Structures are given as C-alpha cells and as structure tokens.
C-alpha cells in the first residue's frame, strides 16, 4: 500500500528503518515518492526521458547519502526534492549551458522537440512553458498543491515555511500564471 504524506509518523518510521540500512523500507519510500519526484523534475527539464534519468539518480543518491539526513531538520520529501533539484542543476552545468544558473532554474529549457510527438512530453513542455515565469518556490508550491494534491499545511511542512507564506506564494504564483494564460499570443 503506497504511503501517503498524510501519515508523517509512518513515513518517519520508514525513513528511520531505511537510515538503518533497511532496503525494503527505502523501496517503499521510492513507491511513495517516485511519481512526485518525476513530476517535480519534469516541470523543470521539459524532457520526459531526462526526467526519468534524474528521478532514478535522485533515489540512488538519496540511498547513498541517508547518513546525512536528519528528520528533525527537514521532512524526507523536501530532502528528496532538494536532491532532485541539485541533480537538475548539475545536469545543466555538465552540459555547459550558456544560460546562468538562475536562468536554468527559472527559465524554460530548449524547445521540447525531442518528445514533441509524445503526449506526455507535450504536456510536460506546456506546463513547463506556462510556469517558467514563476519563482522556484512558487512553482514548487503550485506543483505540490495542484499536481500532488497536498494541503497548504502539508506543503508548509515540506518546505519548512509557515502556512501563511505558502498561501502568499500560491496566490502570487497563480496570479503570474493567469497573466501568462490570459495573453493571446501565449
């Protein structure tokens, strides 16, 4: 049965077992987070295959670095997303993109020509393009809220922020997104 973010105590127990070396526990965490990590990455790289590679790498890296994880500092999901985000940045660094690091994070990747004929790739690209004007925090809040289905309180816990700050990020993100959608040329 997949773990849900509504049961942080159960997740904490699984993480504790994984930290102690329990591979089965970590595999269950993978089952719980694989979709969300993939979505988190896909919105940033606009390439389904690359998103799959980065997602797989994120879990391997998490397993190898579990010693450094402390539950009291940050929720496991947030720690996992941070690893995924760093891998995305590393990917673009390796490719020696001319764009600055901020642009990599904040701007859309090159046109989604690789997966243009694949529905999933097209959808990822459209979402990616729609969200490129958002800050990383706004994008993370909107992805968690509308794609992962988390509540405001759960997002606040994951991001280490107050619910009021999440509501503000959500509002500004949706305002920016509405501005993009309203433009007829876009």
């Amino acid at each position, binding site marked *: 049965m997949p773990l849900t973010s509504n049961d942080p105590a159960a997740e904490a127990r699984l993480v504790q077992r994984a930290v102690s070396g329990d591979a089965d526990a970590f595999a269950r965490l993978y089952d719980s987070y694989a979709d969300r990590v*993939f979505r988190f990455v896909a919105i940033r790289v606009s390439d389904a295959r690359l998103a799959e590679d980065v997602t797989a790498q994120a879990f391997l890296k998490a397993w190898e670095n579990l010693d450094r994880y402390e539950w009291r500092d940050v929720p496991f999901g947030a720690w996992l997303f941070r690893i995924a985000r760093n891998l995305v940045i590393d990917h673009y660094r390796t490719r020696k993109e001319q764009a600055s690091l901020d642009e990599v994070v904040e701007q859309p990747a090159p046109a989604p020509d690789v997966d243009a004929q694949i529905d999933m790739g097209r959808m990822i690209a459209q*979402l990616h393009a729609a969200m490129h004007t958002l800050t990383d925090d706004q994008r993370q809040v909107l992805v968690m*809220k509308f794609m992962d289905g988390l509540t405001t309180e759960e997002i606040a816990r994951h991001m280490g922020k107050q619910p009021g700050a999440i509501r503000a990020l959500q509002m500004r993100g949706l305002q920016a997104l509405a501005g993009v959608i309203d433009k007829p040329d876009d």
Partner: protein
Amino acid sequence: MIDLDTALDDCLTRLANGTATVDDCLRLYPEHAAELRRMLAAASTLERGRAVRPSDSFKADARARLVAHMKANPRRRAQPAAAFGWALRFGLAALAVAIASVSAAQAALPGNPLYSLKLVTESVWRMAQPNPLAADLALADRRAAELAQTPPGSPAVQLALQGYERALAQLARYTSPADRATIMNVLAAQKEILSRVDVVVPALEQWIGVTPPATSVAPTPVVTSVPTLPAVVLPTVSGQPTVTVPVLTALPIVATRTLVPPVIVTALPTALPGNPLPTPP
C-alpha cells in the same frame, strides 16, 4: 475583509473537497471575485499536470535497479548510541584494569612483573613533588622496606639491594648541612629496620659513618628468615592514592646470623602516623 490569499486558499479547499463550485466561491468573496476567477482558471489548468507521471515500465525498471544497487551497496551505519555504549564500556573496563594494575603494583616487590609499573608510577609521582628531598627519602624508605621483605636467598634480593643503593645514591645530591641532618635521621631509621631482619647494606653503613669491621663486611647482604609482613592502609597524602605498606614495627625480631652489631629498631618513617615525609603512590 478577508485577504485575497486566504480567500483563494479557502476556495481551493472547497473546490478540492467538492463542497463548493467556482460560482459559489465567487459569491462567497464578491470583493475578490474578478481576481479569484482568473486564479481559479489558472489552477484548473495546472491540475492537468496530475496526468504527468512516469510510465509504469520506467517505475518498475528503476525500482529493480534501485533494489539491486541497495543490495550491492548495503548501508552499514553504526548506531551512534550503541557504538558509544561499546566505547564507553571498553573505556571503563580499560580504566578499571589500569587502576587495578597500578594499585596492585604498589605492593609489588622486586622480581614481580608489576614492579616495573610501580617504578614508573613512582617516577611520575616524584616529578610532581614540590620537595625533592622529601620525595627521595620517601622512595628510599620504600626501597628499604622492599629489601626487608624480599625472601632471603631469592634472586630478587640482588634486585632489591640494587634498587636501595640507587635510592641512596640519589640522596648524595643533597649536600647542605640541614639536608644531610634530615637524611641521616631517616637512614638511621632504615638501618634499624634492616638490622631487625638481619640485612646489612654496606652503602648504608658508609652513609651513616658506621663502618663495620673488615671481617664482618659481607660482599652481598646476608638475609635470613624475613617473616611475612602484615599490612595497613596509610592515609592519603597530598592527593596521592592510598597505599598499603608493611608496618615493620609489628615484626618479630628474628636475628639468626648477623655480621654487624645489632641496632635498636623502631619503624620506617613512612609507616608511622604523622610522618612528615610524602607518601609515594
């Protein structure tokens, strides 16, 4: 008036729960209706993203690779509490062994495996003493007591004698009349003790100016029938650990063959209460 971000969050929650429609929300917050309509429309666009998910084949394949990687690279993180517990237990055990060894060494006589440890702890103690003469006299007392306790005829007698002679040689460094007077008093007491167990040490005789007759000077000490010594615990002096030393005053006098004139004996200075000399460890 409710803030726009709060109104938006409330509307999104109601829509997610199915307890309200978009129109219901706009009626609920008429002051924000225009802005809410645009944002709720953007939110509905985003919800299409829920369809963004990895393929089942990728998930299964990545999971299999992850499990294989975990089996090939198992994590063996030591439990900090357990590791600390073991380290603590080991450390305490080692400390207990060290304390027991040092304590046992204080009663060791020449020839005993712990005797070297006794000498090492004495050297450390000696370096920490503010009064070198008092320390050297206390150590000379110890050597004298060891010589008196060493069973006659055993190979350890020679070792004990050499140790005592080294202690006497240390005293030669003190040349002032006051120091010499102090030394002579202590050595006289030691001579008496050794005489009670029929031990003659030529170097000691020379120190105190009693030169035995030529015919009675033996090349090595003559030791006969040293009785087993009772022991008492002395009070700690200046932070030093309590030491067990023999009380020579309780000894019966057993003189069987003596080459020097007998001398009246009292006791080792360090063995007496109120002794001004420091007590070695």
